């Protein structure tokens, strides 16, 4: 493990830009290309958005800790936050043909997060500690 960085944010969508800046800065220091950087940034944005909306229900007294580090050829981001367990890896991606045919709305954050990263892991430690790990091979 090398170059470990961490930020803590209040659980509010107004802090998404801070999160993106943190990840972007890290990606730039690794000279990652624009598309790869944006895929990592968007997956962390989507993960935080889901936590803010669904786990913390916009309660900005809650905190999300975001840690990023590089190990071997993997860019790893770990989000730690309190709340009820919800494992995004268990959620099935929508059938996009049906999605478009029925003009559905919403539910695209997790698919985007999954498509942007190589691996996602979720763990829940009782009573209420969650850890979401996003991994991108670079």
């Amino acid at each position, binding site marked *: 493990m090398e170059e470990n960085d961490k930020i803590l944010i209040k659980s509010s*969508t107004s802090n998404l830009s801070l999160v993106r800046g943190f990840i972007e800065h890290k990606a730039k220091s690794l000279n990652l290309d624009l598309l790869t950087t944006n895929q990592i940034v968007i997956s962390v*944005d989507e993960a935080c958005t889901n936590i803010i*909306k669904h786990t913390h229900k916009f309660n900005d007294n809650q905190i999300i800790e975001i840690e990023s580090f590089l190990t071997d050829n993997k860019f790893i981001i770990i989000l730690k936050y309190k709340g009820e367990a919800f494992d995004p890896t268990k959620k099935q991606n929508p059938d996009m043909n049906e999605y478009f045919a029925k003009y559905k*709305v919403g539910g*695209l954050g997790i698919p*985007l997060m999954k498509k942007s990263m190589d691996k996602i892991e979720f763990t829940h430690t009782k009573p209420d500690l969650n850890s979401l790990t996003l991994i991108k091979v670079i």
Partner: protein
Amino acid sequence: MEEFIISEKKINNVAVLLLEGYLDAHTSGELEKAFESLLTKENHKIVVNFEKLSYISSAGLGVFMAYIETMRNNSGDIKLCGMSDKIYNIFDMLGFPVLFEIVKLEEEAISKF
């Protein structure tokens, strides 16, 4: 704080929204308001220019999904233009080019109506 700005203009019968900055879960409500305002004015032919947009997340994609059917049901459409590779990549990852017409230039998008 990263900003999100929408400018609106009308060319012939088409409303053009120029997006600038960062479109995410925090700012997507602004785009919803812009679409609601267009509906109130019975503008159903819409071009969205992404030339100055730096970032989009699923919250932004959701706004286009929320209004495309209404626009089409009223003989209109939402046509998209001016995307950087980075923005197009997000639309493309989920297959949006199947549903939305996406072209390079604003004039081209307008001429599609």
